[in-house]
């Protein structure tokens, strides 16, 4: 009889153990799936102190609390910049009803891009409010933010990166996108929608 009881007991302890493993496995598999769907955090934007085309200072604090799309351009650029800015202008109009997203274009050619030049450039793309800002700073600060902060590469100004960088409300980099590729921009719109729902 006691032998039967041993068998029953080991059967039940096996079942209890299997149940514990089952629960643990369910949680782990669910978390793994969720983490694959989540938009990764790729980095954090450091503090910076630049000047906006209006002449007022602009830094990391002004980015926090908003979903930001950042690119690096210069106004004398005849290569990819006009395309980058026109894609950005499309997005600027597309998101016009929302005040939760901000577009940021940073000049990589501060010697030629004065505040006035940036203002004229903004007017050319029909920018009428500060949902889209244009920033300027000394070349060393720009280079540092470009390489270390946004982890972009390519010589400034001529060979600058064309990528759009998505930064969330907490100053964290969440993705890189190619303005010349419609699919990439569509993906960015999807990510923006998901970020807007994040707490």
């Amino acid at each position: 009889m006691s032998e039967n009881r041993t068998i029953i007991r080991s059967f039940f302890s096996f079942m209890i153990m299997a149940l514990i493993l089952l629960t643990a496995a369910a949680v782990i598999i669910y978390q793994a799936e969720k983490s694959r769907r989540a938009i990764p955090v790729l980095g954090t934007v450091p503090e910076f102190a630049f000047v906006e085309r209006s002449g007022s200072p602009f830094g990391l604090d002004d980015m926090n609390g908003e979903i930001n799309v950042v690119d690096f351009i210069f106004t004398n650029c005849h290569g990819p910049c006009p395309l980058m800015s026109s894609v950005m202008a499309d997005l600027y109009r597309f998101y016009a009803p929302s005040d939760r997203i901000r577009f940021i274009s940073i000049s990589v050619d501060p010697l030629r891009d004065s505040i006035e030049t940036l203002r004229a450039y903004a007017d050319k793309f029909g920018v009428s409010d500060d949902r889209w800002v244009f920033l300027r700073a000394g070349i060393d600060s720009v280079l540092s933010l470009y390489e270390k902060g946004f982890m972009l590469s390519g010589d400034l100004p001529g060979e600058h990166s064309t990528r759009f960088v998505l930064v969330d409300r907490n100053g964290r980099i969440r993705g890189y996108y190619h303005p010349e590729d419609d699919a990439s921009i569509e993906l960015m719109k999807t990510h923006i929608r998901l970020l807007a729902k994040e707490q």
Partner: protein
Amino acid sequence: MRGFTRLCFITTATTYLLIFVGGLVRVSGAGLGCPDWPKCFGRWIPPVSAQQLPPDMDPSQFNFTLAWIEYSNRLLGMTVGLLILATAVLAIKYYRKSPRILYPAWAAALLTAFQGWQGGEVVTSQLKPVIVSAHMGIALVIVSLMIYVTREAYYAEIGAVSTKSVPAGRSRVWIGVLWLVTIIQIVIGTQVRSSLEIADAANPLLTSAELIEKVKSINIVHALVGLAAAALAWKVLPGILRRVGELLPILRQAGFGAMMLVAIQVLLGLAMMLLGINPMIQVFHLWVASLLVGLLLLGYAELTSAKD
């Protein structure tokens, strides 16, 4: 040595937990959660954010959850390695003159060291199916050796070598056949899985039902062999338990456990046929198979040391 037997038992149980965690790494797709080995993203403690990555590593590769799932397999692997090493060292101390304990304990320890290195190959091969399956195969050999050591240590501790005379008949052959079929089923099962993965990579948009359809032939072989083996197990095991179970209590428990596990395996297999591939069912299907291998081996060893 009571403590030694207990250590052997704990080591065997932890090895089974490790086999489970290893399966979990595979089904959760965390195998490349750490792209390097033995460190994870160049660190002994995996990074918690992409910013801790060394500059030469692509931050988009980093996924916190997957990195830690993979790393917990490595940490538990280290733990098991140390436990098996402790077993082997203590075997020298207490069972220097018992080759049936000493040799398999050291074989397990050496194989575990090899397994650690082979785990690195799994990562550098980018999860090549053959290498992943070999990793699991070695794990089965290690756990089998540990079961053998545990059983021998148990008998050495209670001072009884079980050379009772039992009317075993062909029992041992039947259990041996079941053990072999289980191993073959595991091999075919890993083939089903790699064919599924290859089909999935070639046709990324298929539903899991459509994928099963793609690997139909090997899947049917696996199912038919499985059903035949289950039928055989349920036919011969009750008879064996009735004949010799009374005399060999460990055999009785192992045989009873094996019958339960066979039933669970059939249900899990059917569930996957009907509901599609589910990572939860997959991980248990393989783990229960590894338990089955262990119990059948234990039963076989019981019969070997008994006399006809």
